[in-house]
């Protein structure tokens, strides 16, 4: 028997990357390849009243343009199935794609884009999720009456509950409250979003992608192109950093549509500026905690109100709101938990997945809450965590059972490596039993 699992081995594909021989998608240059650039909304919210691309189309070197009308399938993509590839009417965020110009090079694309005549009737946007929840706030999604995601028809709050939180607070000796806000972060990988598309000899659409989830995206792209999966060869595997940002389509739809229309290889890539300003971001969370604790340090109740700003479209945000709520009480046994979680639309760029998606928000905030509790009790912060840390068989907010827990073991190891001397009664504790 061989035993490779457990061995420290260098990355299988590392040599190519450190010697600069790995070919990334943007390294692909094909004979006769065209380039695409997108017309983006200059306003945060509004209605397109007039779009004239004729002067752009007549620019020498321009092969043609793409708008919503050039989408052979459905003009819809995104994890929530609500984003238009090219927005034909109601703009929801600044930078939203309206059209594309396809030309012999990117400079020509940019020159042509300057000749586009675009008139948008600007509307009042809303950027703050608490403003967006007020009555009379600007409505982000046309045709709706409010800015809250509905988990089921009419259900705008996802409730996750374990035990009875009121009873828990009645038993508590101390209640600590806290309100926390997390940041909107960009993935900023070295490689911005890029895609190369062309037709192969069997007339199959070939796309070189930086996607981190081929089948998620393929399922969305077949709808946009109106093609069966067998007619798309979707090649990924070499990615210059993603951190969750490439869990959403940013370029393959545009490159693919251009290749289908003009029947030539097309490269579409975002600049760093476009990536930083208009690509999806980590969404802002506001977490309101009310935590009940006994004098001896045992946590007895946790009531969390959670607010997640999804931006202009749904993305994976509702999923993330729920996932955050499931774990936002941290790795602790708390018999009574109530989570009330909302996902709110605003006129900002779309919130998407990012490393630690939906988890970093709840962990960071609950841990500050724990710090405050230790301080209020006058208890050593290690002790507070050791007392409450999950053991095998404990239950989390959505009633999952903890198995194979290494909670205390991780903390003991950290103390040991950092030279923190933990008292014997803590060292004697184990995640196997309480």
């Amino acid at each position, binding site marked *: *028997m*061989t035993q*490779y*699992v*457990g*061995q420290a081995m*260098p*990355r*299988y*594909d590392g040599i190519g990357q450190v010697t600069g021989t790995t070919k990334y998608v943007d390294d692909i240059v094909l004979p006769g390849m065209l380039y695409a650039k997108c017309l983006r909304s200059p306003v945060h919210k509004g209605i397109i009243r007039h779009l004239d691309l004729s002067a752009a189309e007549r620019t020498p070197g321009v092969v043609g343009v793409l708008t919503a009308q050039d989408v052979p399938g459905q003009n819809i993509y995104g994890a929530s199935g609500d984003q238009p590839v090219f927005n034909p009417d109601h703009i929801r965020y600044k930078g939203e794609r309206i059209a594309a110009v396809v030309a012999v090079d990117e400079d020509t694309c940019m020159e042509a884009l300057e000749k586009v005549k675009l008139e948008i009737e600007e509307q009042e946007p809303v*950027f703050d999720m608490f403003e967006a929840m007020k009555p009379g706030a600007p409505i982000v999604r046309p045709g709706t009456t409010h800015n809250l995601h509905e*988990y*089921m028809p009419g259900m705008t709050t*996802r409730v*996750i*509950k*374990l035990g009875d939180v009121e009873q828990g607070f009645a038993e508590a000796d101390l209640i600590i409250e806290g309100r926390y*806000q997390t940041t909107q*972060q*960009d993935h*900023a990988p070295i490689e911005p979003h890029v895609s190369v598309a062309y037709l192969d000899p069997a007339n199959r659409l070939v796309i070189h992608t930086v996607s981190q*989830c*081929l*089948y*998620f995206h393929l399922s969305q792209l077949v709808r946009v192109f109106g093609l069966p999966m067998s007619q798309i060869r979707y*090649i*990924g*595997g070499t990615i210059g950093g*993603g*951190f969750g940002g490439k*869990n959403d389509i940013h370029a393959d739809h545009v490159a693919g549509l251009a290749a289908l229309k003009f029947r030539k290889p097309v490269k579409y890539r975002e600049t760093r500026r476009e990536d930083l300003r208009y690509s999806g*971001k980590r969404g802002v969370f506001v977490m309101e905690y009310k935590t009940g604790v006994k004098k001896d340090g045992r946590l007895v109740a946790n009531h969390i109100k959670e607010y997640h700003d999804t931006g202009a479209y749904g993305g994976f945000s509702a999923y993330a709101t729920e*996932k955050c709520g*499931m774990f936002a009480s*941290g*790795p602790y046994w708390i018999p009574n938990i109530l989570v009330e979680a909302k996902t709110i639309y605003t006129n900002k760029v779309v919130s998407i997945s990012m*490393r*630690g998606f939906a988890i*970093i928000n709840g*962990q*960071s905030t*609950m*841990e*500050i809450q724990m*710090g405050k509790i230790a301080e209020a009790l006058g208890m050593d912060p290690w002790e507070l*965590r050791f007392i409450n840390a999950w053991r095998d068989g404990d239950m989390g907010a*959505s*009633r*999952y059972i903890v*198995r*194979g*827990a*290494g*909670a205390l*073991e991780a903390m003991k*190891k*950290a*103390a040991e*490596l*950092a030279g923190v001397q933990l008292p014997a009664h803590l060292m004697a504790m184990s995640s196997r039993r309480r």
Partner: protein
Amino acid sequence: MAYVLHPTGNKGGGDPSHAVIQLKPDGTYVLLIGAMDLGQGAPTILRQVAADALGVPIEKILVSNYDNLLPLSVSTSGSRVTLIDPHAVVNAAEDLKRQIREWFAQQHEANPEDVEIEGETVYVRGDRERTVMTMEQVAMGAAWGGGYEPASLIGRGAWQPGKYHAHDPETGEMPNVGAISFGAALAEVEVDTETGTVDVLRFAQVWEVGKAINPLLVRQQINGGYCIGAGFALTESCYPYFPSVEYAPEKMGDYFMPTFEDYPQQMIFGIEEVPHPNGVQGAKGFSEGSASGPPPAIASAIHDAIGVWITEFPITPEVILRALEAKQAGVES
């Protein structure tokens, strides 16, 4: 200090990966997987898992996640690959070995259960002398036929951590979680009370990962996670002047991610292993979690330094100075 968790796999289960292992006519293997590699090293660890499952030298296995006709992997997200894809690989290896036994039994008029595969040697138990073949001979025979029956020896495997279970609308119940990893993080910081800047001097982070398939890559993930977490904690914001959104960063120079200059003088890494019942050899995913340790650990160290609990991220110099002013004014921040 901070103590955090990271759940492995997408929420609610029903989150499959597939794998295909083809035995090539010369006795080498190609592992086809749909798991994309963002830099975390999916092909590297899945090759290690495949080599153990097949019992062959690792050099015999080529991993491709960039071919056409890749089998499905839901995504490389949610730290799911290390928990889920190894099962698909092991199942594909078992399926391939089953096919090899069947083919071998057919050639030697034996019972498939009596066919023994010892790494790269195949024989009928009790009749080793007469029947023994190398895997290369098996592969060649099955591929080219000739004096043997031809067979397409391609192993297939799929796995998911339980069927999907939607949230119960009343209670939010969703009991299916693939696995949970645990992290502990410690920070030592220096706060300049005049400028509000925070310097992380020492940082330690330990992750309990079930089984580290590749400890080098685990360490690299903890390292990378620090940078994302420290950026989240201290500097990164796409709307630094919110509620105004008119100013937004547009180049790396005005989007403040940590660089080597911001890296702590001392970084301590640790790996702890408590094998998880859901993992291949106990392994569970953790890597995204390594971003979650730094923000609360840094916030806790800042409290230790200046006596204020900061409640918003990023903790920019402005946030620190305002907190100090509020403290001085006797108002609870």
